[in-house]
């Protein structure tokens, strides 16, 4: 033990203790090494320990500073009598000042007179502390912090005092290390989960005539590398993707982000499923420390229901028909991405009738371990059977059957896409937002085609609908969400389209709107504009020529 300051010598134990003193010391030893302390959280353990230290050593202040190894500083974490130290987050560089030297020299230090010593922390002087004793907190020969006590009157701490303080330090140190380790792991887990979340789409695109839903469940303990995606492609095409990077943790999640972005880029360029997987496989070869992934990518033509899928080592897509029949798509298997040089990927095609659904999923859903593949797939098939109301319900039904606790060992991703049933009428509720116009045009085009309209019919009706809906968007008064409705019906080859908004009528402004009305009248057989206090209703009719 070193002595600092005025050069006063630290005394050894002052003679033989009395029996009563020996009993007190034994109790003190017990109270400081109390095993039940380790059951407390770090915060409460330090709190309780400092209270006991204060009582047993009859000191006015007691404090614990923990080492921040990255900064090379001690940070005040718990204190009694000098609570400001913690509140102000006092930081002491290792090697400097009283506490800093204890950590650097790994040895207890006694300061008989603070006024004449190298004490860095201004709070200690301000508190009027005269004498101090401090010991390092050591776990497996690593310093994790410093425990020190102080008195407001001059005091000579004995080696017995130092021994008791070291006992308390010995009780606190492992708990501190454990808590820090846990904190670090917890932080890593949380940041990995946040990363994973940020890499998945937060909102799925609204795709006309298709009903889309997706789920992602993180693994119980570790983040995984599952992803899904839905993309609106050119024309009436919709891309749907799923993937699973081998491994867990931040690295898997980061690779997943790269692959998902790569897949989006290739898909938006218009490549088909096999080509997208081929390009993704090549991309993976260029990524350092690359790893492996399974993935499936499908393109659906929402107009015809044609579905083309390619799979890179991924479990087969699940098809659920409108009448509730479930089957697995018989795909030609290809190797996982990053598994083989010069791999080639194959496409399988099928057709989704209106009301049919396709589900892509990762193996977390079917927990492939220990059970023969055929059996798990049969379980999956059985879980999907029954008539689903919509894609959301289908996702829920599968999870209820296969992951009822919503917590699995592996992460789970699934995405379901259902082709909507079309009856004779088309009803759309649209937000009063210019971006909704394209969605309206896609839906109206599909509806017209389904009712025997030709190119000219489509072109003309679309132009009229576009103008009527643009009017409705402009009439909607901000603020607040506003919407309008379009209803299209067909009778005796005559299409009737009604567009109704809820805004107050405004006279056409400038040439622009006047032009709109001209176009509507020129392209439709009949146009009626009905204005009222509650909104405007435009009803248009046109005989479909089939041209």
């Amino acid at each position, binding site marked *: 033990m070193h002595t600092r300051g005025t050069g006063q010598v630290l005394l050894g134990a002052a003679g033989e203790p009395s029996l009563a003193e020996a009993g007190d010391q034994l109790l003190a030893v017990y109270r400081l090494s109390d095993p039940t302390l380790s059951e407390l959280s770090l915060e409460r353990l330090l709190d309780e320990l400092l209270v006991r230290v204060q009582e047993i050593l009859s000191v006015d202040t007691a404090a614990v500073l923990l080492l921040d190894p990255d900064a090379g500083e001690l940070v005040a974490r718990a204190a009694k009598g000098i609570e400001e130290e913690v509140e102000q987050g006092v930081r002491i560089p290792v090697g400097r000042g009283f506490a800093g030297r204890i950590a650097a020299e790994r040895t207890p230090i006694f300061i008989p007179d603070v006024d004449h010593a190298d004490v860095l922390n201004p709070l200690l002087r301000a508190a009027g502390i005269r004498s101090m004793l401090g010991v390092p907190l050591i776990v497996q020969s690593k310093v994790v912090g410093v425990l020190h006590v102080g008195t407001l009157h001059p005091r000579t701490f004995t080696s017995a005092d130092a021994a008791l303080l070291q006992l308390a330090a010995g009780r606190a140190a492992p708990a501190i290390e454990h808590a820090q380790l846990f904190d670090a792991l917890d932080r890593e887990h949380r940041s990995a989960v946040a990363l994973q979340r940020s890499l998945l789409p937060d909102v799925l695109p609204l795709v006309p005539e298709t009903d889309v839903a997706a789920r992602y469940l993180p693994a119980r303990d570790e983040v995984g590398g599952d992803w899904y995606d839905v993309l609106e492609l050119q024309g009436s095409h919709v891309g749907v993707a799923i993937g699973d990077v081998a491994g867990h943790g931040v690295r898997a999640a980061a690779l997943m982000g790269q692959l998902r972005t790569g897949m989006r880029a290739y898909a938006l360029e218009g490549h088909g499923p096999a080509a997208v997987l081929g390009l993704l496989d090549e991309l993976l070869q260029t990524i350092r420390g690359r790893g492996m992934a399974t993935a499936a990518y499908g393109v659906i033509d929402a107009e015809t229901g044609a579905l083309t899928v390619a799979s890179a080592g991924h479990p087969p897509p699940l098809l659920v028909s409108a009448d509730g029949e479930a089957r697995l798509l018989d795909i030609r298997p290809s190797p996982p991405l990053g598994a083989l040089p010069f791999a080639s990927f194959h496409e399988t095609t099928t057709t989704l009738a209106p009301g049919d659904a396709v589900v892509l999923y990762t193996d977390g859903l079917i927990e492939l371990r220990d059970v023969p593949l055929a059996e798990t797939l049969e379980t999956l098939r059985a879980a999907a059977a029954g008539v689903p109301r919509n894609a959301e319900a289908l996702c829920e039904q599968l999870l209820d059957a296969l992951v009822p606790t919503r917590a699995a060992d592996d992460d789970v991703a699934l995405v379901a896409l259902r082709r909507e049933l079309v009856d004779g009428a088309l009803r759309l509720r649209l937000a009063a937002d*210019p971006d909704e116009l*394209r969605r309206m045009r896609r839906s109206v085009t599909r509806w017209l085609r389904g009712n025997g309209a030709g190119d000219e019919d489509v072109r003309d009706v679309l*132009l009229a609908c*576009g103008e009527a809906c643009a009017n409705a968007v*402009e009439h909607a008064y901000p603020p607040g969400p506003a919407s309008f409705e379009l209803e299209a019906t067909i009778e005796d080859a005559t299409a009737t389209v009604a567009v109704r908004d809820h805004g107050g009528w405004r006279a056409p402004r400038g040439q622009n709107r006047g032009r709109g009305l*001209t*176009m509507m009248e*020129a*392209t439709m057989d009949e146009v009626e504009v009905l204005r009222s206090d509650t909104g405007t209703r435009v009803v248009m009719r046109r005989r479909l020529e089939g041209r």
Partner: protein
Amino acid sequence: VIQLARLQLRTTGEVVVAEITGEIDMSNATDLRGAIVGALTNHTAGLVVDLAGVTYLDSAAIHVIYELREQLANRGLQLRLAVPPEAPTQVALRLSGVPDAVPTLATVAEAEASID
């Protein structure tokens, strides 16, 4: 979400050619105009807007064409449209009198050649 329209700008000598593909409506018409006008410099004599690859346009697009016409006229620049006779946008353009107001030619080459 895919882009509703794509714009490619190229400058040959004193002529700027703006090739638009996709659809034009009130959600992107003004942005397209801004991007096209931004490509005009002090050395520009004329602008060709190539609509051959446009599958749909509405009155918001027509409005932008008229705005472009006015803006270019104020700067002493010439505006041409390139629209093939069979283009699906012909109906909307004709209904709003565009070919009478802005010289409209079948190809970009013809439109470029007509700028003096």
